[in-house]
């Protein structure tokens, strides 16, 4: 076993095992999202629910190209990131249900998943706001002279937030090991990218910072994997940040409360014709990595996991109200469980 075969270092040409893992994880995310939509309609999930159906290749390909110890940050459309990092589907679903067994104990919900043990540093609700945090995680890697890579995952909407420019400038200036991964799904909520960005080739922004950048087919998991792998290598070995633009499409509206009436049906059909799960399955079947039987076995396994996740979530206890103020501070000064600042009279 050479060093590059170590499980901590993704191989440049993914072996069959990794390809199958990618396929299964994409199927898992797709089915998880579909089930989450059902549970939302049933009233089991509150708040906002942003689904990543159609974006599975971009999520899985990019995360597969990193080591499991490389820190990542994401947006509020991040169920897939948590699942790809290995969070238990049951714990993710329980978080959506607002239960004590959720990955964040029911305090975060759909938009704020985190699995710090798996170096997934969270989903954030303010567009662009999490990007400098990833630069800080990269800064910490560099400060400690470790060889990790931090990846900031964000959407095309975040590209027009000023903090992205600030973050990219600092990462390039200080040669921090950061990958800026923009998942371009072509819409900032309901506004098409050409109505929001003067230059719709988003990767070109990197040129202003002397930063290498690449535009990839975000519907092709292998293309995303290879692009991020190279960006991570550059970060690790040369201390050079990169920007990767993965072009993809979300099949659903912005969130469950978006009826998605402004996007043309023809456009959706054009993207769905290149569905990342269908095309990757075809590739794997063609190579013989996957057979009709093994594909079916994967689907069955995923189905069982999703079923079990939903059961786990619905049977999990609510968060005890006594814990309302439990995690406000690491060093609290009050043991008042209600978190009230006002002293009892």
């Amino acid at each position, binding site marked *: 076993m050479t060093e590059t075969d170590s499980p901590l270092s993704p191989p440049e040409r993914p072996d069959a095992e990794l390809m199958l893992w990618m396929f299964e994880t994409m199927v898992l995310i797709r089915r998880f999202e579909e089930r989450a939509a059902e549970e939302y309609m049933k009233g089991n999930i509150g708040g906002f629910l942003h689904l990543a159906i159609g974006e599975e290749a971009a999520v899985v390909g990019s995360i597969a190209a990193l080591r499991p110890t490389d820190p990542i940050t994401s947006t509020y459309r991040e169920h897939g990131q948590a699942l790809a990092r290995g969070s238990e589907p049951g714990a993710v679903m329980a978080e959506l249900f607002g239960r004590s067994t959720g990955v964040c104990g029911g305090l975060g919900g759909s938009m704020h998943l985190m699995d710090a043990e798996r170096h997934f540093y969270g989903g954030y609700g303010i567009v662009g706001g999490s990007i400098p945090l990833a630069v800080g995680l990269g800064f910490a890697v560099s400060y400690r002279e470790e060889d990790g890579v931090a990846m900031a995952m964000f959407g095309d909407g975040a590209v027009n937030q000023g903090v992205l420019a600030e973050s990219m400038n600092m990462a390039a200036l200080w040669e921090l090991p950061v990958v800026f991964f923009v998942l371009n799904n072509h819409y900032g909520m309901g506004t098409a990218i050409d109505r929001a960005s003067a230059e719709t080739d988003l990767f070109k922004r990197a040129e202003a910072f002397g930063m290498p950048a690449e535009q990839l087919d975000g519907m092709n998991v292998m293309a995303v994997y290879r692009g991020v792998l190279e960006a991570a290598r550059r970060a690790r070995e040369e201390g050079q940040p990169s920007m990767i633009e993965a072009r993809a499409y979300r099949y659903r509206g912005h969130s469950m409360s978006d009826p998605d009436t402004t996007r043309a049906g023809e456009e959706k059909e054009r993207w769905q014709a290149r569905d990342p799960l269908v095309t990757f399955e075809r590739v794997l079947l063609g190579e013989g990595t996957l057979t009709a039987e093994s594909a079916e076995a994967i689907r069955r396994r995923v189905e069982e996991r999703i079923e079990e996740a939903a059961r786990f979530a619905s049977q999990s206890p609510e968060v005890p109200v006594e814990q309302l103020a*439990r995690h406000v501070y690491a060093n609290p000064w009050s043991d008042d469980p209600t978190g009230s600042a006002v002293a009892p009279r």
Partner: protein
Amino acid sequence: MTTESAPAPGASAAEEPRPVSYREALTQAMREEMERDPDVFVIGEDVGQYEGAFKVTRGLLREFGERRVVDTPISEAGFVGLAIGAAMAGLRPVVEIMTVNFSIVAMDQIVNNAAKVRYMFGGQVACPVVIRMPGGAGHQLAAQHSHSLEAWYTHVPGLKVVAPATPLDAKGLLKSAIRDDDPVIFLESEGLYAKKGPVGGEDELVPLGRAAARRAGSDCTVVAVGRMVWIALAAAEELAKEGIECEVIDPRSLRPLDMDTPAESVKRTNRAVVVEEGWPECGVGANLAARIYEQCFDWLDAPIGRVSAADVPMPYAKNLERAALPQAADVAVAVRRALGR
């Protein structure tokens, strides 16, 4: 500004420590904590080569190098966010924002990230970042450079907020803030940097959430924040000539807020005046007054007096600026009114 004075003839340096400026007290705190803990680093605009806009980081770059004293671009949201991310990874950043006014640019990072990451992720991470920044008015810097934002930050659960008034507290509180595992907003006062006084040694910390009585008195309790402590003390000296003895309480930290000390005082004096440099509406004075009413209603002999900045953006003209800022005379008027005089 901080020229070192030679020790007085015959004075033993060990017994009689030379007075240290508020500015230098802060520098000492950072230097000592950086020596103690390799995870502590300083980051901000002009903190390295330039040694800080107010020279608070003087000498740190020379001593600790560029890895630990980081000059940033003018990107407040960016570098505050970076520091928060680094803190989530376990480092202990001490951020200097050149003045509190520029922190408004970083408000999303402070309020949505620093204050939230521990809670909304169910306690999986801590965010041990200190964000230092001087605020206040008095130098004719007009509307955009004269803010006192104590109330804004104190409003936010998840943050801790500190406003030292003396060199001793500046040093001791900053050391506590750096060792604290939560985000601490450390509000300095531009007007106090040159103020001198004794400071504690390396291991003398001032705990967060403990108020200090600055002056004893039995007629009226005056609770004053940050630089206003000195305004309140000046007013107390004037009032003493009229036979009115004020007890001046300095909360020192606004979140956590020690209410025991002011409440105990008000229960003795039966009168209270609160003094802040910020605006009156929903200000820290409003909060202090409400808390005193809740705890001391039956002991109060008069309505609580409130002294604050005028409810206007800060004007430039010197006479107007003076009129807009709380002065010792305003505090004296409020105290006399509380006493029915």
